[in-house]
């Protein structure tokens, strides 16, 4: 009975258009995405592509938290790599289940963030972006060239693989792609919701202020360095978590795969194409760039040097002509639809409500 009443109330709210169109679209997309692995049961390639979209959408959304506080990171592959290597090594060499290893991964990724964030986030300008780039490069060089760090074998640039365990949820390994699919979907939905929640919180308001004008933000009592550091550390921790999942899904790791500069650029590219200062933009970027990247790989596989060139051109075009990414026209279109068809009778005040460009 109670459940029925809940459904009726939901129906009523939908009929009276009390629920914003954006939420309705999110719900529909989520339902479609839940159906995907069952609809494409026989085609694990498509399911794999969608999982890849989720993973990169997740990474870019985590990266975007730094953007929300007005900074750009060009070294996020370092935190992804730290996450991947930590869980991978802990499991393959020490038998630690990834369910526990992920906490160490998150801790180490955050520690990496502390090391470069504390000295550079106090400075204004490009220092932070440069430092992230340099940090990514240093981690890459260490992992590429060192065979051992203490007792830990890191391969000196070689491919490492995770021991296969078959269907073993206890060590986060599954025979089918479906569990990975739902885990990745949950992670993407979770991080986008988290980013949205941050955006509407006091800290999110502070990030908006710092991004808008640091002097003005500080005149209102906001410690810009502290809140930028928080954004960065949360981003590092979440990227470390993403890296751990990446590891479990692909089951092999190498510097090229999880630490390379091109991976940092890919995360930034997805974020910038989507909208680097927005909540939903980086996720939208994932849905655009990952299929494009896959098409490039399939069609230009014989010319591997072409992909970075095409990435570079896409990046330049976006920076020149759409610096706020596709999120901006996307949100404008959504607002237009909302005003025109979803809630045409609502007053102008509500239209303006939706216009607030912080999503």
């Amino acid at each position, binding site marked *: 009975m109670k459940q029925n009443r809940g459904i009726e109330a939901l129906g009523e709210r939908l009929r009276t258009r009390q629920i914003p169109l954006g939420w309705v679209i999110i719900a529909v997309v989520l339902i479609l995405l839940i159906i995907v692995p069952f609809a494409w049961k026989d085609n694990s390639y498509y399911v794999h592509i969608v999982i890849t979209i989720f993973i990169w959408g997740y990474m870019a959304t985590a990266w975007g938290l730094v953007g929300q506080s007005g900074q750009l990171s060009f070294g996020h592959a370092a935190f992804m790599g730290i996450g991947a290597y930590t869980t991978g090594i802990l499991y393959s060499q020490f038998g630690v289940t990834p369910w526990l290893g992920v906490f160490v991964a998150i801790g180490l990724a955050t520690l990496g963030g502390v090391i470069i964030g504390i000295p550079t986030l106090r400075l204004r300008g490009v220092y932070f972006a440069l430092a992230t780039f340099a940090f990514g490069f240093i981690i890459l060089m260490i992992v590429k060239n060192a065979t051992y760090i203490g007792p830990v074998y890191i391969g000196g640039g070689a491919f490492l693989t995770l021991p296969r365990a078959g269907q073993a949820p206890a060590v986060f390994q599954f025979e089918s792609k479906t569990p990975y699919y739902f885990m990745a979907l949950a992670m993407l939905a979770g991080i986008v919701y988290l980013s949205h929640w941050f955006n509407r*919180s*006091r800290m999110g*308001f*502070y990030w*908006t*202020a710092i991004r*808008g*004008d640091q*002097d*003005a*933000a*500080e*005149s*209102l*009592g*906001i*410690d*810009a360095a502290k809140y930028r550091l928080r954004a960065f550390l949360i981003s590092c921790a979440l990227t470390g978590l993403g890296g751990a999942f990446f590891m479990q899904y692909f089951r092999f790791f190498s510097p090229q795969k999880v630490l390379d500069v091109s991976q940092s650029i890919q995360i930034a590219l997805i974020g910038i194409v989507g909208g680097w200062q927005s909540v939903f933009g980086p996720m939208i970027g994932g849905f655009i760039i990952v299929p494009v990247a896959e098409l490039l790989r399939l069609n230009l596989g014989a010319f591997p040097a072409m992909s970075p060139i095409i990435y570079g051109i896409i990046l330049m075009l976006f920076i020149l002509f759409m610096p706020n990414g596709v999120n901006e026209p996307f949100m404008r279109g959504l607002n237009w639809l909302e005003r025109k068809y979803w809630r045409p009778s609502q007053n102008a*005040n509500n239209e*303006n*409500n939706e*216009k*607030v*460009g*912080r999503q």
Partner: protein
Amino acid sequence: MAILEVNNLVKRFGGLVAVHDLDMTVNEGETLGLIGPNGAGKTTLFNMVAGYYRPDKGQVIFQDHDITGLKPYEVCRRGIGRTFQTTKPFLDISILENVVIGGFMQAHSTAEARRAAQDALDILELSDRVETLGSELTVPDRKRLEIARALATGAKLLLLDEPMAGLTPSEKGHASELLRKISGQGITLVIVEHDMKVVMTLCSRIILMDRGEKLLEGSPKEVSSDPRAITAYLGEEYTVSG
């Protein structure tokens, strides 16, 4: 009773002494005008009080506490708000959200911050357009938004840097009214302003700065009739007879 005291403040930029051995007292509740030609050091003084520049020498005392060299956000937390000569609204959010950010300073929750913001917006008469984006504001509205934002922090003292710049005469009249209203709430105001008509009518006391030093201090009448003020800044038209 003094709310702000500035003692022997010095700021040098390379070989240039922007502020030289400046003493200033601001009394609680008063509206103090800070005037002087461009380059006199008025904004530099503001920037030192508000924490944007670290003084090379001297002391800034606010409500009996030494705040010299504190960071801008720490100065704000002590109760000093400021506006900027070139306004700095947060462009991609609404007026209300701009002011809520100020309101968080004294609030424990978003609802409290919203209330503080609403009060400030009411005083500045911006309540009818709270959803307008920062990027869509006219110059007078930008000026008002900045004051509202600073007020929402719960500031006891507001440093207003040229609040009338870029306003038409009628807008200036209205802005003066608003500042009087703020002053009526017990907020101390220090105003850097070039429009002498506004300064003369709004301020109870005036300090005239020239080349980094305090040249004169007194009531509007005293300052405007002093030959040194006329020579350094005001010109003959502001001579007050009798």
